[in-house]
């Protein structure tokens, strides 16, 4: 049974593989890096209370690697450099599947992100269709 790593960018049961065991880790290093205070922790915690997930405190990689053993980890992709660095470290110890988050708009080829207007000129027709 795979271990599902629910990180702060994917607090939903929608992506959990059937039968997986889900974990969330409050990592002091992340909390300090993001500057989270009590308001945010409470918001996230309340969200987790509604979800089929076990909540831990500790060092993300160490904890997940121990819990996953040979089964491997599945999680959701994110642009967050702190989370991406943990995914890379985890990969050195166990197999990690990273699934894409739901797509808002599919843009093919090179997308010029220099200004919102450039992005919008490509995205608008698809989004307002």
């Amino acid at each position, binding site marked *: 049974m795979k271990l599902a790593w629910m990180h702060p960018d994917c607090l939903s049961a929608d992506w959990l593989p059937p039968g997986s065991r889900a974990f969330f880790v409050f990592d002091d290093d992340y909390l300090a890096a993001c500057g989270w205070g009590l308001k945010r922790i409470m918001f996230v915690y309340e969200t987790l*209370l509604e979800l089929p997930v076990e909540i831990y405190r500790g060092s993300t990689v160490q904890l997940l690697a121990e819990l996953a053993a040979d089964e491997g980890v599945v999680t959701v992709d994110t642009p967050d450099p702190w989370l991406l660095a943990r995914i890379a470290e985890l990969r050195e110890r166990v197999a990690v599947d990273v699934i894409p988050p739901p797509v808002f708009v599919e843009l093919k080829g090179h997308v010029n992100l220099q200004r919102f207007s450039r992005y919008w000129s490509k995205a608008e027709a698809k989004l307002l269709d």
Partner: protein
Amino acid sequence: MKPLKKQFSSRAELAAYLQQQFPAAVERDPDMSPWLGGLAEAQRRLAEFKPQRYAATRNHLDGQVSGLSPYIRHGIFSLASVKTRAVAVAGSAQAIAKFISELAWRDYWQRLYLQWGAGIWQDREEYKTGWTTADYAAELPADIDGGRTGLACMDRFSRELRSTGYLHNHARMWLAAYVVHWRRVQWQAGARWFLVHLLDGDPASNNLSWQWVASTFSHKPYVFNRENLEKYSSGRFCPDCGAKTECPFEATYPDLSARLFQIGGAA
């Protein structure tokens, strides 16, 4: 290692447990917000939201905005699912084009985050204010964080940010412009402050919006005047403001430009 507790009889009991578990976070911010976490609350807000009224009213502090940002920020709802639901309510995507374009801002910032990573903390371009980064203070003045500037509007926004973890988009723009342009503080100091308190605090949406206000990721600095703030807040702040007669926002845009920047032409 034992998992953390999941059964609580009340919010107060949860808060007490978290205070004990996360002392370092309490030091950064000891408050709890009246905003509830969770999917059920997100669904309630989505059901109440009237996307057809968004375009005409969204700039007003009392306007019809969704209040979904913390839920979207944490993946409780995807942008796609919010869009699908709003289109179903309004009948077509065209009918809620403005709302969809605002959802798209988040998608846009997330794409830049993937490209730039921690580079979102650097000035992406130079300030178009005539000042250089070195002319701006590196730290947030304590009176802003403490809600003690003497300006009724800014003090209210500061306290609301701390006590609720949410500010209307226009209030964020006004407060950010005040910090960067009136107080001449580096946008990074304001961005760090927002990220401690906002429930929707997202490094990409937050920092790049601050850079847009500052002009380090836009063609010109964003400024506002008293007339603009009064219009979109129904004049609720000025009557009780101690600085009524010396309002720093009471000016035409050309005058503000001349006063705040070393070049003309900002609006």
